[in-house]
């Protein structure tokens, strides 16, 4: 099971962060009209901080999967888990980048 965990952990973490930040954007917008113009304001910063934390988490998972201590033995699981970890990081940056650029509640 630990091999499966190594393969799945990064993309699964992306999915959790992606869903959570989407939910967070909904909460921010539900908070009221003040949040509607969310650029440089508190609500925007909340989203940006969440985005940065998600990226940090992915970087940490990538380092773990790559490390000798927690990474898999040489072979299929090592290769696949490393590709998955890179996928998780790229997906986090690519899909959550809109928190830096898009209007939050319009």
């Amino acid at each position, binding site marked *: 099971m630990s091999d499966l965990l190594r*393969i799945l952990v990064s993309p699964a973490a992306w*999915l959790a962060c992606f869903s959570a930040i989407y939910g967070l954007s909904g909460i921010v917008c539900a908070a009221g009209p003040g949040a509607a113009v969310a650029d440089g304001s508190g609500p925007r910063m909340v989203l940006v901080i969440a985005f940065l934390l998600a990226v940090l988490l992915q970087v940490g998972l990538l380092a773990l999967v790559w490390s000798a201590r927690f990474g898999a033995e040489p072979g299929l699981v090592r290769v696949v888990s490393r*590709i998955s970890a890179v996928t998780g990081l790229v997906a986090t940056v690519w*899909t*959550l980048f*809109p928190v830096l650029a898009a209007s939050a509640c*319009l």
Partner: protein
Amino acid sequence: MTALARHRRLSAAWASGPGWKGWFSTVNHSDVGRMFLVTAFFYFLVGGILAMLIRAQLATPHSAFAGPGIYSQIFTMHGTIMMFLFAIPAIEGMAIYLLPKMLGTRDLAYPRLTAYGYWCYFFGGAMLLVSLLFGIAPDGGWFMYPPLTGRIHSPGINTDFWLIGITFVEISAICAAVEFTVSILKYRAPGMSLARMPIFAWYMLVVSLMILTGFPPLILGSILLELERAFGMPFFQVELGGDSLLWQHLFWLFGHPEVYIIFLPAAGVVSTVLPVMASTTLIGYRWVVAAAVALAILSFGLWVHHMFTTGIPHMGLAFFSAASTLVAVPTAVQVFAWIGTMWKGTPRLHLPMLHILGFFVTFVIGGLTGVMVAVVPFDWQVHDTAFVTAHLHYVLFGGFVFPILAGIYYWLPLASGRRRFFRLGNVAFALIFIGFHVTFLAMHWVGLMGQRRRISTYAPEDGWTAINLISSVGGFVLAFGLVIVLIEIVLHLVVPRRSRRNPWGAGTLEWAVPMPPPAYNFASLPRVTSREPLADDPDLGVRLARGEGYLGDARGGLRETLMVDIATGEPEQHVVYPANTRLPLVMAAVTGVFFLSLLLKLYWLTPLALAGVAVLGWRWVWQLGSDTDLGCQPVGHGLALASASETDRPPGWWGSAFLLVANATLFGSLLFGYAFLWTVAPGWPPAAFMEPSLLVLVAAPAGAALAVAGIALAVRRNRIGGDPTAALLAALAGALCLAGAFALLLAGAPHPTGHAYGATLWVLGCYGLVHALLVALMLAFLLARQRAGYVSRSRRAELAIVPVWTGYLAVVTALILAAVYLPGFAA
């Protein structure tokens, strides 16, 4: 022992009953796989006829072929049948039939569950078919959006058939997913490490995990909508705190992964068949595995791209637009791996290869239009037009039907032991390919010209007449092609021309079994040292038939196999399967009575049916295990393994763990729905919160703690040779106390029809109550087994399973209490 004597002994142990009566009691994976496939293709035929009716209707303007009411039933049932009664069951059937053979074992992990899943599918599908025959079929579109499907706008029984029938059928998918996951991880040939697994098994492992996490949101949505329709709980009624968008979220949380659940097994077929057709091995095996994993998980982050026109803020649109474009990358990795494989090898244009080429062309076009609709402004233009209908057919027909036809032609000689005689398949392929593209290229075009989906007619001045006529002609050409495939398969089965063994020169293990395969698959189980064992040792099949592998002595008429370590594939446990029984059929029938009682509003029957399921479930599990210690069992090659009933990780533990993954997803979806309504739906927060009950707040945690501690103590007492009865009784008391606490919570909850808040609390309370009663039933079962002598210090497997459920119950109890009372405290 000679090979023939071994064959006779094994056949006596494994064969199903004689004649057609044997179908009702068989639990053998080859039988059940065939039954799944035949039933699924029957529904393909029905769905195809409905498609022809749609094309007949749209062929001319102002068509009087079918009225709008009937037409709504036709297109709803076409989509429903193709998605739920054809595509998924066809995948299940193919995997049920093939996986044990590919993995080098004798059956799937839970043979009776395989049969139960089939009968649930059979009865659930029959319910929908009956509704179609009586003209009361679902008519709200295959995704059943409320408020159209709420009881105000759809007061008849039509929608109920969909909600209840599909939920019944989905039991089958969940059963199969648990079955596949455990089988792929634990039931493989000795030595078959993860790196040596056939690529199809990797795909099915990924797909099974997707089903376990993708189907529960729809099951929950169906339960909530049926509760609204039957009892007035307003989950989707905006005036009472509900929100119809909640349905769209729950549906597409299932619906988008569903597309990949259908595509990925087909991609597994392509990855298996293509290298054989090209006389080489798959290029980038590890990248393909990684791409399948990435595609599976990314597909769960796309669901809102079906909702781009619902008024979601820009940031949300951008999230899902970005995710939708990203998913093209792992898809492309697979496509390039397949192209590279063809480049590396020498492709032979046999019939399976033709269908794979058809898949390439069609699926790549579907993928490109998928990227187009991932771009929000374009999606706004074509949303709910025929362009989207054409896109999804390119993806699903191209990504599923062509590969499945390739797979059928590829594995048909294995299943029948015969070779093709009449060469109708090439003509059929040409008709299918040309017919498909004429139909759906035209549909793209007419969609861009503004024709909406699901319209029953149009006017001549719309300018769509010629294109629709071309599309309809193409549709009938496609249908002729598929009929010829059917005719060829029937001819193949009735014309006895024996095929030689391994006719394609494949390297995977399914071709090492005799053709057609006997009920036991392998006379002895192989030791695997590479990914293509048959390529390394072409005589492997003969050596296994001689009994040179594991478990080759067919002892005592038992159905034996091995469980292995997940990573290395080294043998771990000796497993004895249950024999043929009608229990799965009876259990599915009683489950069907439960669903029918809900459909027909015969609520007095519902608890009786539930009690029947509980009694049969008790009997189901009682038949397992042993009342004497078995010790280590010799399995061949000087190896002796512990019996599965004498370990801490028996098959039931693994099944429970993965079933709880699906269960937890359902519960998580419920919490998501609660949070969604709270933050998005109008009319929240409710006028008054539920009053905290001190009794519930004390009894529930105390009951959960007692149950968890009791079962843990029972396991420990048994391990040291003590009597676990007192600890089990304490755990049972805890579970019953918890059930009482949930009953009290329900009694004090706001009325469930007044506001979505009360309705949600009611569902949360019922979820907790059902699970507390389930754990109580399991603990009572353990007590009975212990008293009957089935539990000992060695025979500890059953004691190992219940703590998994008890622990889960404790966690959901904490979450339910938090969800119910924290908002009130906070306010």
